[in-house]
């Protein structure tokens, strides 16, 4: 009995130390990530606040940004959105669903050599405009497209 207990303690003790070391490493990474993450932008609850936190207030509309999204999406939990930017020096693309509880859905930084194209699937609570906010050559440009939602995908 005692022998067993000792082995058990030894085992868990060792595992505990290992887990602690492991999580310490992970926490460091996590903090670095969190610092990079646009917390203010992702917690904004209105389109104007999102634009402000992206630093994109007063962005111009541009015809060189194309949003590919369905006119009517039956399932709001999976709305495929693709954004193509033909603007030179496209650095960053953000996708914003205007009437979501937290409108900013995603930001893609393509300044490392990717093309001005991203596609992803997002959730939408209700029919709303989807905005693409593109940073190109240090300036911000926008485009929008309305997507009708039959069944909301926020619940």
């Amino acid at each position, binding site marked *: 009995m005692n022998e067993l207990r000792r082995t058990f303690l030894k085992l868990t003790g060792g595992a505990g130390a290992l887990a602690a070391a492991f999580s310490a490493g992970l926490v460091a990474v996590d903090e670095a990530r969190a610092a*990079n993450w646009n917390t203010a932008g992702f917690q904004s609850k209105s389109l104007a606040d999102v634009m402000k936190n992206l630093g994109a207030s007063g962005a111009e509309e541009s015809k060189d940004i194309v949003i590919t999204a369905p006119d009517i999406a039956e399932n709001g939990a999976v709305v495929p959105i693709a954004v193509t930017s033909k603007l030179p020096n496209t650095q960053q693309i953000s996708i914003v669903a205007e009437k979501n509880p937290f409108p900013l859905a995603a930001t893609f*930084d393509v300044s490392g*050599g990717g*093309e001005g194209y*991203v*596609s*992803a*699937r*997002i959730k939408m609570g209700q029919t709303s405009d989807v905005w693409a906010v593109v940073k190109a050559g240090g300036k911000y440009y926008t485009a929008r497209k309305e997507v009708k939602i039959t069944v909301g995908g926020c619940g």
Partner: protein
Amino acid sequence: MAEPMKIRATLQGDVADVRILMMHPMETGQRKDAKGQIVPLHFIQSVVVTHNGKTVLDTQWSQAVSRNPFLGLRIKGAKAGDKIGVTWTDNTGDKRTDEATVAAPS
């Protein structure tokens, strides 16, 4: 540990068309389970895509990205056999890295 990602990269001219499918619940923190308890927020916060070790796409995501997220991108100046690496990190600190090579056009 999370399930592996599915990564397809095909060459079209000198541009690699990359499609990534990740396996993740992407909980919004608003959904309730069968017992009426709110399912806590659990989502991928960041995805980094590298091309031969160089970062080409750095994304920041919110919980509004769909479950089992899909990510499509194009990488300029790619050649067949180039390595595409994808790493995601979620809000609990969990992460996963997978790698694929660019396939020649068929």
